[in-house]
């Protein structure tokens, strides 16, 4: 959900009727209605969409046009492989090159002893990749976002669900989009989102 670029001060003087809004936010009653409304809005051609809910809803991301490309999974895999390689190479280098010790006559580079630490570092690196990757792809922390300017939005973390259309959408028109959203099933209110 993206808002249109902010216009400069000069624009107001040219008789532009609208002030800058980030988008419109529709409040709905149930997650099922949100799912249906999202599909309808996507079908109507809107693309700058986002849906907000207090619990994950299956199929919602796909309904607003984000089927998921598996980027996070690949990040985690990369992290895990890095951890494994790093862990093994570190141990091999230490035990065979940097500080070889005769421990029970075992060969210095005996890989069997290196498995536990390699495994642990694989899991550690993969987990860090999962957490940092999830936060990074989600662009979090982001303490400020225009949707928080809507008074009712604080219920999005409790029991209400919302559908948002960004003003950067080519089809976005303050009145027409508002009428469209108000016409959807289950909508209890449509609010303007200020920057």
């Amino acid at each position, binding site marked *: *959900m993206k808002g249109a670029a902010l216009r400069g001060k000069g624009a107001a003087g040219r008789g532009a009727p609208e002030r800058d809004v980030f988008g419109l936010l529709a409040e709905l009653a*149930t*997650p*099922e209605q949100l799912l249906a409304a*999202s599909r309808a809005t996507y079908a109507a051609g809107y693309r700058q969409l*986002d*849906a*907000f*809910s*207090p*619990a*994950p*809803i*299956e199929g*919602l*991301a796909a309904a*607003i046009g*984000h089927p998921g490309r598996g980027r*996070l999974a690949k990040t*985690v895999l990369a992290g*895990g492989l890095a951890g494994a390689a790093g862990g093994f190479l*570190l*141990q091999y280098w*230490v*035990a065979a090159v940097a*500080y070889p*010790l005769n*421990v*029970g006559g*075992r060969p210095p580079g*005996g890989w069997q*002893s*290196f498995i*536990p*630490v390699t*495994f*642990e*570092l694989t*899991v*550690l690196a*993969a*987990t860090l990749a*999962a*957490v940092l990757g*999830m*936060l990074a792809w*989600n662009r*979090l*922390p*982001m*303490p400020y976002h225009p*949707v*928080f300017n809507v008074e009712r*939005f*604080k219920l*999005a*973390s*409790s*029991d*209400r669900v919302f559908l948002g259309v960004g003003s950067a959408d080519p089809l976005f028109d303050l009145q027409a989009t508002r009428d469209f959203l108000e016409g959807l099933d289950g909508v209890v209110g449509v609010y303007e989102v200020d920057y």
Partner: protein
Amino acid sequence: MAAPGPTHDGSRDREPPVIEGDYTFASVTDKISAIVLAGRSPRFWYVGFAVGFVLLQALLVSICYLLLRGVGIWGINSPVGWGFAIINFVWWIGIGHAGTLISAILLLLRQDWRTSINRFAEAMTLFAVACAGLFPLLHMGRPWFAYWMLPYPNTYGVWPQFRSPLVWDVFAVTTYATVSALFWFVGLIPDLATLRDRAERRFARFAYGILAMGWRGSAIHWHRYETAYLLMAGLATPLVVSVHTIVSFDFAMAIIPGWHTTIFPPYFVAGAIYAGFAMVLTLAIPVRRVYGLQDFITERHLRNMAKVMLATGLIVGYGYLMEYFVGWYGGGEYEMYMLNNRLTGPYATHYGLLLLLNIAIPQLLWSTRVRGSELALFLIAMCINVGMWLERFIIVVTSLHRDFLPSSWGMYAGTGWDWATLLGSIGLFLTLMFVFVRLLPMISIFEMRTLVAEEAKPAGGRQP
């Protein structure tokens, strides 16, 4: 989590529900966040926190005196050079494992009943690992050099010995602590957002807001969030097994009778889950009563946990049996002496008590009535908590105090400082748990919402 759970056809009617009463997104949120955002806590909280805090002071005094005087203040000597410190370490790490099992493994197995207990159990894991981590540090002769265990380039040109299970432990416990903390925190993010939006006081809003990192419940974010959560659960599952396996290697890779046995990895892991579930029950039973959470932590949860306890207790019992069988079958005189010594030697009473608390009393869990009684479950769980500590005592002390050479034999007993440190670590654990209960939602709010949505579906989708 959108966990499918048991089938929503007639077969579900025979099983009690995972959430009782008529709840909606709003009422679930209200009930759980009210505990955190309320002005006053129940008296139980003040009493519990006070007890924990006083014991914590004992820990602080013990640590200070230890650093001042050295490990001689403990009972360790020749031949028992490893005493309460290693016993406590293994005991605490074991307790932590149940939390990860509930959070991660039950998620992968799609067990709905994990939902109301997983936040609480994961917090328990984190604090148990914190308590555990103290002991390897403290039991070093010079704890201020603890960082020497890590591989870092230094002017001596010295590196850790990577063939030692003690070094593997460093990586295992560090990884486990980090992964548990991350898993717990990531699970908290949406609930922190809920608290941020509901808190009345300005400082609370600010604090929760910082921690929530701007979470707004966007569907795209949820999608990535669920992916990350599931992947982390998949990573944490083998981690749990590997960590306690590596801890068991501390003993199994040594050569003394009673330690050098291949049954240790599975035996330790099962024992860890056993002890951990006992601790979860010890905490969950009073907490659900005091905070009125019986609709969320239902009888079904208590029964399921009791069943897991019984199953793992039987595995532990099998472990004891196999120690005897293999000792006898192998015919090794040292092994046979060690086993004989446990039954008839100076620590025979400890061993007898162990068998009573760990094996005999938990057999009561076969009874459906016992599994349904809160008091019985609480008492049995306490027995298991003590029994599992005793088990580690028996393993460590009986093998060390009489090994190959009779002229080296000796006795071991914990000193007052040993006990003070143990009880103090319990104080640390209790303090952290009570602070957690006061400041953070002890039940995962957003996961409970998905349960409410699940339960609503067969009834025709009644929703807020």
